[in-house]
């Protein structure tokens, strides 16, 4: 099994995680710029963070054979500070043509405020005008539905091409509006409180898995990069073929990311006879953890 984790915050993970990801089939990761758990005091802190994402992390990943890609932006939470955000946005062009950068992200909303919306529009506009892919964070819990609808409206306003935008953290109530408008979506598997591997597998079945990526968004909080693998186990146990698994957990991210010339991984297609056939018996025998 080949897996790409399209959303993981490697700066918060140890080398042991990288090694175990590599040992469990992860060949590439994509790391959006995000909130560090505390508000940074100046734009220079973001510049150093972008240096870490484009310089140090690719080296750590490469030491275990994983390709590391990244996204540059000011995150939705710190976007509440408009002055700081504009200083950070001014620094972004210096990093956009680093060899592992795929685009602008994860921009988005956190509490659906006016300030967050202003900075979202400015970053989306920067991405559209410069031809960058966009990766989007949607708010959590009670704010998700409203925030997702606000983001869809703003993307239309800024003239973004839906095929070049991935809207992440969709759940049962937000996946349809995202896919219906032609955007890519991401489903994030959190161990507590939000999407579970089983519900993600339900949504893959209900919506067909087109333009859909699955990630664990592991970071400094309670999270587990291997939730992604748990989803593959459940999806396989439901009787889906190895090629279907590869298409969702490897080839879909390849398809979206390959719109950036920096992305080098190619799709994996099994030859005849290579297809392991999961049987109904295997599914029936599989037990819940």
């Amino acid at each position, binding site marked *: 099994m080949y897996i790409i984790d399209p959303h993981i915050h490697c700066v918060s993970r140890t080398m042991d995680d990288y090694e175990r990801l590599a040992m469990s089939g992860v060949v590439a990761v994509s790391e959006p710029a995000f909130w560090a758990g505390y508000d940074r005091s100046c734009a220079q802190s973001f510049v150093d963070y972008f240096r870490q994402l484009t310089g140090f992390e690719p080296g750590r990943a490469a030491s275990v054979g994983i390709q590391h890609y990244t996204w540059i932006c000011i995150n939705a939470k710190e976007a509440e500070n408009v002055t700081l955000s504009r200083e950070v946005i001014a620094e972004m062009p210096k990093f956009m043509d680093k060899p592992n950068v795929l685009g602008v992200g994860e921009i988005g909303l956190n509490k659906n405020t006016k300030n967050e919306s202003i900075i979202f529009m400015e970053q989306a506009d920067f991405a559209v005008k410069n031809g960058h892919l966009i990766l989007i964070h949607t708010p959590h819990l009670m704010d998700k*539905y409203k925030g997702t609808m606000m983001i869809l409206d703003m993307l239309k306003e800024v003239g973004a091409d839906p095929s070049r935008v991935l809207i992440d953290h969709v759940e049962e109530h937000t996946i349809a509006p995202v896919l219906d408008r032609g955007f890519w979506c991401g489903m994030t598997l959190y161990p507590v409180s939000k999407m579970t591997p089983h519900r993600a597998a339900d949504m893959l079945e209900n919506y067909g898995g087109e333009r859909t990526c699955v990630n664990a968004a592991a970071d400094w909080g309670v999270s587990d990069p291997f939730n992604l693998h748990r989803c593959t186990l459940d999806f396989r146990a439901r009787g889906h073929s190895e090629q279907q698994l590869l298409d969702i957990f490897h080839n879909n991210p390849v398809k979206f990311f390959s719109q950036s010339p920096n992305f080098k991984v190619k799709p994996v297609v099994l030859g005849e006879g290579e297809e392991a056939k999961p049987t*109904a018996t295997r599914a*029936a025998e599989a037990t819940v953890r």
Partner: protein
Amino acid sequence: MLSSQQVLDRYFPEVRAWLIQTAAVMDRLDRAAGSPHAVPEDERLIQFYKSLEVLASNDHEADRAKKIQMIFSDQTPAPSRD
């Protein structure tokens, strides 16, 4: 695609666990000082009881997960950027 028998076999243990966990939280609320009956206007409790109604629904078109998601969603208008 699994048969309904297989779905039941595979997912029953976790559903059982979650239902008991929910029941235990309700019991805990009842035992707590100033039990929930004293604050029925708390929005979260209203959402909680509305969700239980969705769970109990026998409508096969119910789309229960989505319905419960919407019960827990803020649906007020977006702020103006001006």
